[in-house]
């Protein structure tokens, strides 16, 4: 009803003619265009700001020197190298993805293909809900419940056993304090599982009905339908989802910063403390005083930017033809 009234009003204002139509359209388009352009400007200025602010560090150590430098000493030597953090981020993200990959896809398949509708929708809602839990909330659980539990019931027994049987492995295993690479990786895996699951399920639900029916008609069992008809069709979407989850894992900050133990020097060990690119920025940026220190942290931000840009562009390339929503939840 309201719509009709408004349309009548539009017609009755004919005398305003040119202003109302031509100018109105021009203004509307210009506004939309400018606001769209704002997003592009924001992204470009992010790249520009990061490279501008980090230029001091890159000038001081050289691009190669900064990327491969292994010393991070804001206190005395004022030497800054990003390699420990790049390694820390890569190790935790890749390991988390390796843990999360198969279970996430399994849940995706289970919801989309096997579960009765009501169970499927319950799990689906739960997964969305879990994906919405803020990272700090997971972090507080990790810091007070998960890490102490891991220390008492996993790390210390493993550490003692190794000390008795293979003392030479101890330097690889590391300090069983509870906060370290292994803890952070497990939490990271738990945090990206919902994300990967949602994207997998989306990809599977886009497989056309006929594709499945054709396989059923050949006498395939349910699993054979999934393996031969559904998964090959959804492959691209699932792969893009995995890439986006990897991007998530790389940028995940708070929970990792709370659980990884924050040790800025190589070598890293399996259960011992380490640091990642986001965690060092969070920990040191607030207290950084020297301009070289700030600039080096911005430099780490730039490296993080380039890595996650690459990952996102690969995901966008894979998604482009396959998904309408661009991999956004809901």
């Amino acid at each position, binding site marked *: 009803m309201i*719509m009709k009234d*408004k*349309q009548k009003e*539009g*017609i009755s204002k004919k005398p305003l003619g040119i202003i109302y139509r031509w100018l*109105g359209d021009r203004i*509307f*388009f210009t506004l*939309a*265009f400018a*606001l*769209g352009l*704002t*997003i*592009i400007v*924001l*992204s470009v*200025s*992010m790249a520009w*700001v*990061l490279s501008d*602010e980090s230029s001091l560090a890159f000038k001081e150590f050289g691009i190669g020197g900064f990327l491969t430098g292994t010393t991070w000493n804001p206190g005395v030597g004022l030497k800054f190298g990003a390699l420990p953090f790049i390694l820390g981020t890569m190790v935790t993200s890749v390991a988390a993805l390796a843990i999360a990959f198969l*279970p996430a896809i*399994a*849940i995706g398949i*289970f919801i989309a293909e096997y579960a009765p509708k009501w169970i499927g929708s319950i*799990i689906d809602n739960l997964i969305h*809900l*879990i994906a*919405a*839990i*803020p*990272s*700090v*909330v997971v*972090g*507080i*659980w990790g*810091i*007070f419940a998960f890490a102490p539990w891991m220390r008492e019931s996993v790390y210390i027994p493993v550490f003692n056993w190794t000390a008795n049987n293979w003392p030479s492995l101890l330097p690889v295993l590391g300090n069983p304090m509870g906060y370290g690479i292994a803890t952070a990786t497990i939490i990271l895996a*738990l945090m990206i599982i919902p994300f990967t699951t949602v994207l997998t399920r989306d990809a599977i639900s886009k497989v056309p009905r006929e594709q499945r029916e054709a396989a059923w008609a050949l006498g395939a069992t*349910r699993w*054979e339908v999934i*393996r*031969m008809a559904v998964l090959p069709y959804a492959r691209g979407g699932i792969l893009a989802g995995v890439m*986006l989850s990897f991007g*998530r894992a790389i940028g*995940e900050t708070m929970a990792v*910063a709370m659980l990884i133990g924050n040790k800025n020097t190589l070598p890293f060990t399996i259960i011992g403390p380490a640091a990642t690119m*986001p965690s060092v920025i*969070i920990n040191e940026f*607030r207290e950084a005083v020297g301009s070289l220190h700030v600039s080096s942290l911005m430099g780490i931000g730039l490296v993080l930017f380039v890595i*996650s840009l690459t990952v*996102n562009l690969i*995901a966008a390339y894979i*998604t482009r033809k396959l998904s*309408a*929503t*661009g991999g956004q939840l*809901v």
Partner: protein
Amino acid sequence: MKNFSEHKTLWQRNLWDRFMVALLTFSTIMVMLPLLIIIGYVVVNGISALNWDLFTQELGSPARAMQGKSTGLIHTMLGTAVVDLLAIIIAAPVGLGAGIMLSEYPDHKLNPILRVINDTLNGMPAILKGLLAFALIVKPMGTFSGLSGGFALAFVMIPIIARSTESALMSIPWSIREAGLAIGLPRWRVVLSTVMPAARTGLVTGFLIAFARAAGEAAPLMFTSFGNNYLPNHWTGMILGPVDTLPQRLYSLAISPYKEWHELGWAAGIVLLGFVVTLFIIARMLTREKNYD
């Protein structure tokens, strides 16, 4: 096809099928369990840490908590409200406009690149958006402020709103627009008075999702709104001075060495979780309504 030429009996194939059902069910349960344990643990610990002081007192110095005086997070909750509102006020027009650009002018040359850049910005770590807000707002202003925190969160919201606006508007059939144009409406009136009202639910859902996502982000706030243990003397201090927000305060409480503050951390956790999950459930319910229309 290869599968059928192999010499597998029907019995073997059915067995394999059963095995996969069991495996998938098992792994679903195995993964859902720890995730539910996390929620349960936070809820139980958080609710036992809740008390009335939390909503009436400010935090003060660590000494105040250690002497057993009443401490709370009222300044944090007010700060969160101010910063989140600033963020949505900044982000809404930009996201909406970009979404309209993407859906209503689909043939424009800007759009393919805008879409890719928007998705990339959406995938960028939130901490980088904090660094951007630090360089653009905090540095020129010379002080940490609620305003810069609002901008940092707005950078998180904008790409989400742009995407959801686009898909909400795209879900309205093109014939509606043609009907509007046919009765002589100019294009901007078609968008504002026919397409956008019809896509209302989708638009609101997008705003809610973006708001929920940003409200839980701590990383961009650590060096923009910074944090503050006290209520500012005047309300403008919330916008122009350093201000406390729930996610950032939760982090500071959790890594502090004081036992009393850890308790407060759990309380902050349950408040934050409740806030974000409520927003999210409303958004999900709206989505469902839309699908049944």
